[in-house]
């Protein structure tokens, strides 16, 4: 169907995705950068800080963009990152 789709869908707000809570165990990171490279939504980037292992661990750019696919967890060789769904209190 080749019609041009340009409107914001009426149910755009209702389709709010689950909110992510990204946990990075900074000192466990060895700075391979896999999580940054493979994140499909480009949620992570390299931070400036230096951790216990002397490398730059990742940091979250925009937590809202995360879709909790957990691919970062899967690719991390050092079990240094995991994502949880944010438990909504007060209708977050």
């Amino acid at each position, binding site marked *: 169907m080749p019609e041009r789709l340009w409107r914001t869908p*009426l*149910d755009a707000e209702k389709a709010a995705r689950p909110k992510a809570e990204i946990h990075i165990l900074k000192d466990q990171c060895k700075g391979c950068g896999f999580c940054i490279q493979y994140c499909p939504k480009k949620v992570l980037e390299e931070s400036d800080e230096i951790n216990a292992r002397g490398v730059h661990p990742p940091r979250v750019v925009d937590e809202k963009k995360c879709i909790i696919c957990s691919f970062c967890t899967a690719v991390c060789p050092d079990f240094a990152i995991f994502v949880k769904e944010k438990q909504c209190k007060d209708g977050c």
Partner: protein
Amino acid sequence: MAKEDIRIGVYVCHCGLNIAGSVDCEEVAKFAAKLPNVVLARDYRYTCSDQGQELIKKDIKEFRLNRVVVASCTPRLHEPTFRRVCEEAGLNKYLFEMANIREQCSWVHLNDRKAATEKAKDLVKMAVAKAALLEPAEEIEVPIIRKALVIGGGVAGIQAALDLADTGYKVYLVEKEPSIGGMMARIDKTFPTMDCSICILAPKMSDVGRHPNIELLTNSEVVDVKGYIGNFRVKVLKKPRYVKEDCSACGECSKVCPMIAPNEFDAGLALRHAVYTPFAQAVPFTYIIDMNLCLNKDGIMVCEKCIKACERQAIDFTMKPETIELEVGTIIVATGADVFDPSTLPQYGYGRYLNVITSLEFERLINAGGPSGGRLIRPSDLKIPKRVAFIQCVGSRSSKTGRTYCSNVCCMNTIKDSLLIKEHWPETEIYVFYVDIRAYGKGFEDLYKRAKNEGVKFIRGLPAEIFEDRKTRNLWLIGENTLLKEPYKMSFDLVVLSVGLEPRKDAELIQRLLTLSRTQDGFFMEAHPKLRPVDAATGGIFFAGCAEAPKDIKDSVTQASAAAARAGILMAKGKVTVEAITPILDLEKCKACGLCVKVCPYNAITLNKELKRVEIVEAACGGCGTCAAECPSDALTQNHFTDEQIIAQIDAVTGQDADKKIVAFCCNWCAYAGADFAGVSRMQYPHNVRIIRTMCSGRVAPKFVERAFARGAAAVLVAGCHPGDCHYINANYHTQRRVERLWKKMEQNGLNKERLQLLWVSAAEGERFASKIYEMQRIVESVTPDEIERAKKVFAKAGGA
């Protein structure tokens, strides 16, 4: 046959006053009687009538006629009739010839009786000259595979598939979307009966889904078609759904899918996930993954939420596209139409103003199963509008937008829509801005009256421009009421653009795959607008629905049933005869150069290197004659259009006053039909043109053109289908190459190359043909006797005159 006496009977038809009104038929018949080999010449009021046919049959027996010439209308109309008459009288049907003195003579020279009569004489003389050389021929029979392919699963395709399947034939239904249903599935109610559209369509859709004779191929596209009537080999690309047929459509996968996009089915007014089903009544009712949206699109398994959610383990990311080969006897094209994109009209502000919507968006909004649950809301604030305007003919009936035709459905659709609003919210004020209201069908006028009685206001005159009030997002319509001749400026909450229909973007691809032709509008062209309205010019192919022209649901269904019946006739017979216009090979002359093999559009000729000769598959031959024109050693010629026959016609034209005449070679499908169309439309043009019909312009060998010039013709026209529209796939590209070579030769010999003209003209472009003849008339007038003599000398050797 050549041994026996040639005995030709000539019948000059009056066609009432259609011919006799501007041609002296009696005189033409008297002239014909004196031509060589003619033993009998009559003029008759209506030769195609039963009495006329009986007369011919009687004469064949009584006067031992062995050739028959009828000078009447175009052979495209009555050649089959008279061929049958000959057969019934025991004469081979290929011993019949026709002279077209109606469409190409009397109707185009209405006011010059003398010239028209002279031209008619010439045309009869040409036909008699060809008739003397005609040979009897036998047609070969080709078996028809009793399976059909339907392309497109809208309501037309569904109906055609069901009708054929119920008759007992195996049907493949190919649909490129994930579900069948097409446009009708997206519409809320149908006019004029206000039935719920999906409620009447869904049962048919599920019938298709479980019919034992129908194989449904959704998410699939036809990528290649080879073969000919009765024996098509079709390749279908089946794109992967990534969901197996085990899917129970529980929807758990969709709930967990993190990716969202606007749903095409709802015109982008609602969201869908990357794994989705287009709508609730979809057939087949299995989910599908949109790989452009899915996180796993690059072949890396990033996300596997759907896999985990699926209890039946129906999701399979390893699926690959597959190409299926089908063998079918007939094809029904039901590819439908696109809707016009109004954002190309800046004055209406579609795409900028939120509250300007299209009629298709309206359908989704008013539909109970749609994104707003059937509440007509305006997109800016989701409130129910109190004043609604409909604007008609958006993208139709305007030379400015490039779509000049009427889209047929929009008037009634708007009337239906206005009544739907009145039904739910009777207080709504509705204005319809129109050019003309066309309520032509059964029950349409009643609906129109009902809308007027319910208080819908109709204002003639489309708004010139729409402005938006920045605060309220209301819309100001400014224009002129052409009935009251006064300007209007009115404010509305919601504006609905009644958008027209246009040919599918990929119509060109289908056209090329199936060697079809299209009208100027871009819709597919039928074999005859009145008498073969669902047949394509290519044998074994039929049209249904909006692919042929915009039409409503009822007409689409009617046409689909007609197309199914037409395809059924072929398959019930189980065989078809191939016209005996295939090539004749003279083995002694053939040098096995292989040039014919290269030009054959159907791969019907192969080179046998061991035996050093070419071999012809007659059943695959389309009958264009390009091979015969290409053969450098005269080893190939075409049955019923032999070199001798065509040269005899050229000689007949150029026997007298050649220096004032134009010899025109026209292909049967486009140029000859275009000249006929000029006649049907009574377009007048100069009378000095004499048309020789070949099946394809590719049949026109350079030697024919040279012969005409060698005999002193003032000008020659070679006319064929537009490049890309050739009835024989690409044969007319060879025409162009040959004409270019002749131009070069003329230039090298100091001849005015304008005397040879090449024209691409479609069957609908009578005007183009007529204006070309006017243009050539000026060239004819400027040619000096000296130039004619020079051309005679240059071409004397090659033309063999």
